[in-house]
């Protein structure tokens, strides 16, 4: 088949689709992360500050990376942190965990251990009871990936 200009376009479009699809399987692309953020915030603009995400700078083993998140809040019945979502931008699936607090939590802090496939940025988003959203980002270097072969 002679590749003239017309079917060259069709071919390259196909190749591009394939490349994009391949990328999606390998790691969560920016699109999936943005989708999750939009779903969580409901369109509200995320401000910085108030929330602090703690994670090691270098994680030797991506299978268990200890992280903790804390949000400054009086945690009273009408002013508290309702949810905190953690996202890993470089994992095959960006979602990590969503912590749901209540006024009875006393302080909005939580820690857990997570898997990281490779060196990447972690995003923590906090949603307050009044609907405002805060975020924090931490970059973690991973020596050994944690998502299996």
């Amino acid at each position, binding site marked *: 088949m002679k590749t003239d200009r017309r079917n060259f376009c069709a071919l390259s479009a196909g190749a591009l689709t394939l490349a994009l699809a391949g990328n999606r399987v390998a790691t969560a692309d920016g699109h999936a992360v943005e989708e999750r953020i939009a779903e969580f915030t409901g369109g509200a603009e995320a401000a910085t500050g108030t929330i602090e995400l703690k994670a090691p700078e270098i994680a030797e083993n991506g*299978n*268990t*990376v200890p992280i*903790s998140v804390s949000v400054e809040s009086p*945690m009273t019945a009408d002013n508290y942190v309702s949810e905190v979502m953690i996202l*890993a931008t470089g*994992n*095959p*699936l960006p*979602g*990590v*965990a*969503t*912590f*749901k*607090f*209540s006024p*009875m*939590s*006393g*302080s909005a*802090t*939580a*820690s*857990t*251990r*997570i*898997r*990281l496939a490779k060196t990447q940025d972690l995003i923590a988003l906090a949603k307050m009871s009044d609907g405002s959203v805060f975020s924090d980002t931490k970059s973690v270097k991973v020596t050994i990936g*944690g*998502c*299996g*072969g």
Partner: protein
Amino acid sequence: MANVKPRVKVPKKAAAGDVIVIKTLINHKMESGQRKDKKTGEPIPRKIINNFVAKFNGETVFEVGVEPAVSANPYFQFSVKVMESGEFTFTWTDDDGTVYDTAKSIEVS
């Protein structure tokens, strides 16, 4: 899983109004669904604990929506403000519908 054993650390005593720290751990493989069987190349189906709930005297105080990126043997640490004596109940829900639970009581003076 036959021998899933939840472990929870709650202080035995506290003063009213104290913010106490609770640590929970449960043994579970947390199969992410991303791994492949090395011999057959078939993907290993996902099997994780997808939800964790802590209740105090029947009221939900803390909940986690868990996704495959949480490590094997999921560990959660969180805090609760206690005003009265009572009982904490903890439940973990598996992808296959199994529920693992345990309870701990606290004396508040």
